[in-house]
C-alpha cells in the first residue's frame, strides 16, 4: 500500500512540479520536473519494451490428481537483444480447472536467444481433461513504477486432472457374495478370505480385517490382505444420466462416485482382482498393475453425466459384456426405477450385484424440484425386496480430500 503511494508520488510530483515551474517560471522547478518526467518516460519505454518480442513454450504435466500441486514451466526467450527488467507471467488457465492455491509466476528477466524458465504452481479442484492456450506477460520497469502487460498466443496445452481416491470403508454383506471363502465359492467366485498377507492399516480399511495379534506385536494397526481368487473380477457402473450429477462442481455426486470408484478399484486390483468399467471401455486390458490403475484414473477423469440412457437400461445392455462371476457395483445417486428391473433381471441370471447408493440430493446447494434421491427408504426397500443388498455410501469425503478451497 505504502509502496503504491510512493510510486504514485513520482508521477504526481512530476505533474505538480511541472505546473508550478510553468506558473512561477522557476528554473529549479524546471530542472526537478524535467528529471521526474524523463524518469517516467524512461520507465514507460522500459516497461513497454519489457513485454515485447518474447517467445514461449509451456511444459505442463500430462496428468495430475485433484489437489496435487501442479507445476507448470514456461520457457521464455527474447527476440530482441536488450537487457530487460523483471517480467511475470499470468497463464490463461481455463476457469473450468477450478484452480486453487495458485502461486505467482517466478519473475524472470528474459535474455536474447537464451531460454529462461519460469514456473508457477496451482492445485486443480476438478477432474477432467482441460486445454488452454495463451498467456499474459506483465512487465515493469527497473524501478517498478510503471507496469505494462501484453497478451501472447501460445500452443495449446492439455492436462488431465484425475480423480483423487476417496477412502471408504465398504462393509460388503456376505449375501452379496463377499467374504465367502475360496473353498466355498470356488476359484472363480470372487474375493475370497484366504489371508494373503498383512499390511499397515489405511484409512477406509474395515476394522473386521485388523490382525490384532500382529498389531499388538508391532504396536500399530495391521490389517489382513486377502487373496481374491485368480478369476475374481469387479465391474463398476456409474450413474451418468443427464441431470443426475448433483452438487457443486468438483464436489458433486459423480465426483464422489469417481473418488470411491478409484479407491475401491485400486484396492481390488491390489488384491488380485480384475476391475472393469464396462460402460466406459470396450476392451478393458487384462493387466492388474500400475498401468491398469492409470487407465482407470484416466477413464474416470473425463466422465460426465451427459448420457441419455438410464442406469437400468445401461446395466441390461452391458450385462452381456460382464465377465462371468463378476461382482457388479452400481453407483447411483438419483432414484432410477429402471434399475429395479435391471436388478431383478440380472439377479435372476445369477449376477452378483451391489447397488452403492448415494444421498445425492443432500449434496445440492439448493433443494431440487425434480427427481428424488436414491437413498430414500422406499427405493432401498424395493431394491432389497428384489434380493439386492444396497449399501449406503457416505457422502462426506474425509477432510484431507475436500480441503481444497480457493
Amino acid at each position, binding site marked *: *500500500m*505504502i*509502496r503504491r*503511494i*510512493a*510510486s504514485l*508520488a*513520482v508521477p504526481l*510530483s512530476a505533474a505538480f*512540479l511541472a505546473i*508550478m*515551474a*510553468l*506558473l*512561477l*517560471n*522557476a*528554473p*529549479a*522547478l*524546471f*530542472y*526537478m*520536473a*524535467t*528529471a521526474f518526467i*524523463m*524518469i517516467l518516460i*524512461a520507465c514507460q519505454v*522500459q516497461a513497454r519494451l519489457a513485454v515485447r518480442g518474447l*517467445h514461449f*513454450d509451456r511444459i505442463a504435466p500430462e496428468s495430475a490428481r485433484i489437489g496435487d*500441486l501442479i*507445476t507448470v514451466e514456461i*520457457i521464455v526467450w527474447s527476440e530482441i537483444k536488450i*537487457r*530487460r*527488467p*523483471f517480467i511475470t507471467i499470468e497463464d490463461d488457465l481455463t476457469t473450468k480447472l477450478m484452480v486453487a492455491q495458485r*502461486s*505467482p*509466476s*517466478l*519473475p*524472470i*528477466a*528474459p*535474455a536474447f536467444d*537464451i*531460454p*529462461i524458465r*519460469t*514456473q*508457477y*504452481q496451482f492445485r486443480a479442484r476438478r477432474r477432467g481433461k482441460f486445454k488452454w492456450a495463451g498467456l499474459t506477460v506483465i512487465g*515493469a520497469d*527497473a*524501478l*517498478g513504477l510503471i507496469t505494462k502487460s501484453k497478451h501472447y498466443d501460445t*500452443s495449446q496445452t492439455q492436462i488431465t486432472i484425475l480423480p483423487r481416491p476417496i477412502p471408504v470403508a465398504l462393509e460388503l454383506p456376505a449375501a452379496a457374495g463377499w467374504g465367502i471363502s475360496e473353498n466355498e465359492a470356488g476359484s472363480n467366485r470372487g474375493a475370497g478370505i484366504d489371508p494373503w498377507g498383512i499390511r499397515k492399516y489405511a484409512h477406509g480399511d474395515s476394522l473386521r480385517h485388523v490382525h490384532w495379534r500382529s498389531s499388538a506385536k508391532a504396536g500399530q494397526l495391521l490389517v489382513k490382505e486377502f487373496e481374491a481368487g485368480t478369476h475374481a473380477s469387479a465391474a463398476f457402473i456409474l450413474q451418468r444420466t443427464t441431470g443426475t450429477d448433483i452438487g457443486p462442481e468438483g464436489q458433486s455426486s459423480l465426483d464422489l462416485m469417481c473418488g470411491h470408484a478409484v479407491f475401491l478399484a485400486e484396492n481390488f486390483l491390489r488384491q488380485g482382482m480384475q476391475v472393469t468399467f464396462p460402460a466406459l471401455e470396450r476392451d478393458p486390458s487384462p493387466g492388474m498393475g500400475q498401468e491398469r490403475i492409470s487407465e482407470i484414473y484416466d477413464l474416470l477423469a473425463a466422465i460426465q453425466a451427459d448420457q441419455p440412457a438410464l442406469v437400468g437400461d445401461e446395466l441390461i445392455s452391458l450385462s452381456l459384456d460382464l465377465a462371468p462371476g463378476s461382482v457388479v457395483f452400481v453407483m447411483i445417486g438419483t432414484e432410477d426405477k429402471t434399475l429395479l428391473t435391471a436388478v431383478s433381471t440380472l439377479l435372476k441370471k445369477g449376477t452378483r450385484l451391489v447397488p452403492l447408493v448415494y444421498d445425492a440430493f443432500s449434496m445440492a446447494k439448493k433443494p431440487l424440484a425434480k427427481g428424488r434421491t436414491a437413498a430414500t427408504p422406499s427405493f432401498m426397500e424395493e431394491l432389497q425386496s428384489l434380493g439386492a443388498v444396497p449399501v449406503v455410501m457416505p457422502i462426506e469425503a474425509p477432510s484431507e480430500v475436500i480441503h481444497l478451497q480457493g
Partner: protein
Amino acid sequence: MSVLKPNIGFFCVGMVLLGTALSYAIRMGSKNKKMLGMDAVLYTIAALLSLLFIRDLQSLMPDGGFPPELLTGSLLCWILSLGSFFCWRDNTLLFQAIPSIALFGLVGCYDTFRNVTFAFYGFVLCLATLFARANSRAMLRLAIDSGYFATLDGLSRDALEDEGTLYQRIKEGPWRWVAGAEWALASATIIVLVSVLGAPVIQATVKPIAGQLSLVTPASLRNAITSPSTSMETGGTVRVGRGPNNLRERPICEVRLDRLRYLRAETFMQYDSGTWKNPNNPLGPDLAELNTAALAIETIEKPKQFAWTVKPLIPMRAVPAPAEVISFESSAISQLPDGTLSFQGGPQTVEISGKSEEPESSHPKQAKQGLPAGLAMLKSAISITPKVRALAEEITKKAKTDGDKADRLMLEIGKRAKYNIKAEATPSGTDAVEYFLFDQKEGYCDLFATSMVMMARAVGLPARYVVGYLPSPQRYNGAGGYVVSETDYHAWAELFFEGEGWVIYDATTVAEDVEGGGRGDVGQKWYQAGWAKQALLGLLFCGLVFGGFAVYRVVQPMFKPKPARDQIRATYSKFASALHRHSKRRRKMSETPREYLNAVRPSIEPIWAETFALNERLEELLYGRPVPSPADSVAIAVEVRAWRKKLRNSKSK
C-alpha cells in the same frame, strides 16, 4: 540553506542520519516480522505528532527554526527526521520520498537556494536505486511464493529463510540477465544529465506562457535573493557589497530600442553606511518636490528624441526606461519625480511605449551649477571617508573640466578594482567604498557605481546612484528588440552636467574582469564555463571513440566472411521462417529440425518429399561431418531459395 539558516539543515541531516542508522540496526537485528510491520503505523503517528506539535518542535530547532511563514518546511523536515526512525522496511523508506519531494518543491518555488538542483539530482539517483532495490526484493518474495526455491537442490532449511542466499542463487539462475538496480542507477544518471541540458530548453520553449503566477517571497528570505528588487520591495533601501551575486537567466521583459541603452528603473540620492535610500519612494522621506527629471529635460540643450517599448514578461512594479522620459502611452503607470516609471496598484505586465530625450551629442564639461536646495544631497559628503576623498582629489587635481574629472575618476576606479560577480561581501563595520577601492579591489556593479558617485561627490560633482538594466547584445531577438533577463540587472552612476542633463558613468566598462567572475558569468550555467566545455569536449571525444569502436564491432563482422556453418545456420533460419509463415506454426526451442518438419507436414504435403530431402541435407550440413565448405553453404542457399519459390507457388495453387 534556503532559509539562510544552515544550522537547521545540519540539525535535520543529523537527525535523519541517526534515525536511519537506528532503523538499519532494528531491521538487521530483529527477526520479528510483526514488529517490523509496525513501522508504517509508527511512521504515521510520527507524522501526525509533527503536524500537531509543529510549533513546539519548531522551537527545538537551532536558530529559532524556520521563519513563521515557512512552517510547512519545518513540518516536512520534522516528518523526515522523525520518520527516519521508523524506516524499517523498504515500503516505509520509499514513503520518505513524499516529504522529500515536497521539501524540494518548496525550496524550488521560493528559489532561494540555487544549489538545490544538484541536491535534487543526488536525491533522484538515490531514489532510483532505492526503488530498484525495493522492486528486486518484491520480486524475490514473488519468486519464493512461486515455489522456485523449493524445486532447487542443495538449499537447506536455513538457507530458505535467508534472503541473501536466495538472492545469490536466483541471480545465478533466471535473474542472470536482469536489468536491475545497477541499470536503474545508470539510467537515472543519464536521465539527470539529459535533464541538465533539457530543462533550460524546455524553459525557453514555454517562455511565452510561463510565469503567470508571482509568489510573494517571505520577508525573512528576501535577503537571500540578490535579484532585481526595487526599493519598493525592499523597504526603500538597497545595500551594496552584499557578496556573491546569484542572478539567474530568467527573462524579465522585452524592450525595443534604437540601440543598446541603459534602462533606468530607480534612482538613489541618499547614501549612508553602505545603503542607498530612495527619496521618491513612499516609504522614504517626502521629497516629491525634487523633480530631477524636469530639471534634466530643461538642462539638455540640443535634445534628440527616440521611441522605445517595454513589454514585461513577468509582473513588474518599475518600468525600466532609457534616458529622460518625456511621454508614454499608458494610464496604468505614473512617473515619479526622478523620471522613473512605475505601475500603479502593484506589479503588472502591460506593454508600455514611450519617448525619451537625450543630448544630440554628449560632451560633458561643466557640472550643473545652481541646483535647488533640496538637491544638495547630490553633492552630499556624508559617508565619504577621508581616504576616499583624498584619492578623489588626488586623481582630479590635474583635470581641466568637470567632465575630465569624471572621466579620470572612472578610469581610476576601473584601474584599481577588478570586476568580480562572485566577490565576497563587505565586512560589517567597514566602509564599503573604501574597502572596495583600497582592500578588496574587486566587486561588481553596485560597488563600482557607488564608488563613482561618492568620489564624484567628493570633488563637488552632483551624482546619483541608478539601478536598472543593461541589455546584452547577445539577446537581440532579431526584430529590433532585446530580451532583458535578470542577469542584465545593473547599477551605474549618473552625474549632472550643464547642457547634458544626467550623464551615465559606468566604471565597470573600464575594469578588468576576474577570471570566471565577469558580467554574464552570473547567468552562465556550469556547463557554459570554460572547464565544463573542456570536459564536455573530452566526453564527446571519448563518446566518439567508444561509439566508433561500437560501430566497428557491429559493422566489422558484416564484412568478414562468416564460417560456412554460420551461413548454413542462417539459411536454415530462412527455411524455418518460410515453414513458419506457411504453416502458421513456429518451431519450438525444444524441437529438432526433423520434429518440426513432421509437425508441419500436413501443410506442406504437396512438396513433402523435396522438403524432407532439403531438411535432411540441412541437418547433415549443420550437425554432420565433415565440416561443410563455403561452396556447400552457397549451394544449399540456392537450393533453399528455389524451394521457397516452390513453397510459395504451392500455396497460391
